[in-house]
Structure formats: C-alpha cells, structure tokens
C-alpha cells in the first residue's frame, strides 16, 4: 500500500487564482512525479524530480505551473493563474528509481476551477 500523502484532497479555485497542492513521498524515495488525470482518465506527465533537482518537465509546466521538492519539506505543485481547463486530479507518485521501477501514487488532489 502506498504511503504517499497528498494535501489537500479537494481544492476549489476561481479562474486566475493560485492553486497549490503538496505531496509527501514515501520515505526513502528520491524520485517524485506529478501527473494530471482528466475526467476522461487521460494522464499527462507534468514534472519529475530526483531529490531536489528537476529531471524532466513538459512545456505546459514551464509556463503557469511551478513545482519544487525542497529537502526536509513536502514537494509542491502550484498553478499561478488557474484556468477552467486545469480542473483535474493531480497525482503525485514516488519511486526508488526513475528507471523501470514501481511508482507509488498518492490519492491525488482534485482541483476544480470555477
């Protein structure tokens, strides 16, 4: 069973507002991933970290999205100016390795942008 913790579970924002969500990876997992899952069950990879360093991120993430994984603090994903199309389930996963390894997912933060 996954021990990845995500907060809050639900987030409601108005368009243009900031939305911030947090993730505590499993203890000892240096690799953290953020995915967006829309209502059609489509997953979109957003960004991943190894320790505090960004490994990969998509273009979308570079514009309005920002993320960090500081040492000894929860990882976070923030949307600077929320849009209706950002409404989705945001999933955090952690892993021991970034290559061919199990990703352990948290329950997600469901964001609704009105």
């Amino acid at each position, binding site marked *: *069973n*996954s021990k*990845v913790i*995500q907060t809050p579970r639900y987030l409601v924002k108005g368009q243009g507002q900031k939305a911030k969500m947090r993730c505590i990876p499993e203890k000892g997992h240096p690799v953290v*991933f953020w*995915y967006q899952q829309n209502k*059609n*069950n*489509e*997953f979109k*990879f957003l960004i*991943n970290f190894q320790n505090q360093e960004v*490994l*990969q991120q998509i273009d979308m993430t570079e514009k309005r999205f920002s993320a960090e994984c500081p040492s000894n603090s929860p990882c976070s994903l923030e949307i600077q100016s929320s849009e209706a199309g950002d409404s989705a389930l945001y*999933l955090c*996963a952690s892993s021991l390795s*970034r*290559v*061919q*390894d*199990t*990703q*352990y*997912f*948290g*329950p*997600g933060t469901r964001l609704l942008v009105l």
Partner: protein
Amino acid sequence: SQLAEENSWALSVHEGESVTVNCSYKTSITALQWYRQKSGKGPAQLILIRSNEREKRNGRLRATLDTSSQSSSLSITATRCEDTAVYFCATDILGYKLTFGTGTSLLVDP
C-alpha cells in the same frame, strides 16, 4: 494520440469468472506496467513486466507481453467484487515517466 491504450473501454463479469484486459502500444519500450485505480484512490501497481520477459504472475493476476505485436494482456482469475476498478497499462519508454492508456473499467458483479 495515445502511446498506450487498452482495447476495451469497459468490461463486466460475475464474481468468480476470469477476465482479460488487453493493451496495445506504439513504440519500443523498456517495460510495461499494469496499474489498478479504485474510486477515490490513486493508481496502484499490479505487475511490472520488462521488455525481455514474456509473462509475469502475481497471485490471481497474469500479465503477458508480446513485443513483436506491441501488445500486452492482464488476466484475472477467480474475480472478486473488490477487483472492480479501472485498469491501466503504462509504458516505460525513456525511463523518466510512465505513459498511461485511458483505462478499462472493470465491474465485477456479486
């Protein structure tokens, strides 16, 4: 277009029956993983099968991988109501992210 996709949108079986979910993918892979997502939860991995493996088992679950046809299957025997979930295949292409299919919704009736 999806790099990985399950071949059925939804399946329904009675408890105790067997069921197979199929997946096809479009690129060379290093590994393929099967995940299950129950309502209100994040995905949970069921099986990871590497590109040099043809079959992998985990209890009542059996996954196969055919790299020549770029397809995989997940079979569940003796299904239980708690197997009701959405099943995803996910390909590990470059080693830094998973590419998920859109899932097959499985309903197991009592």
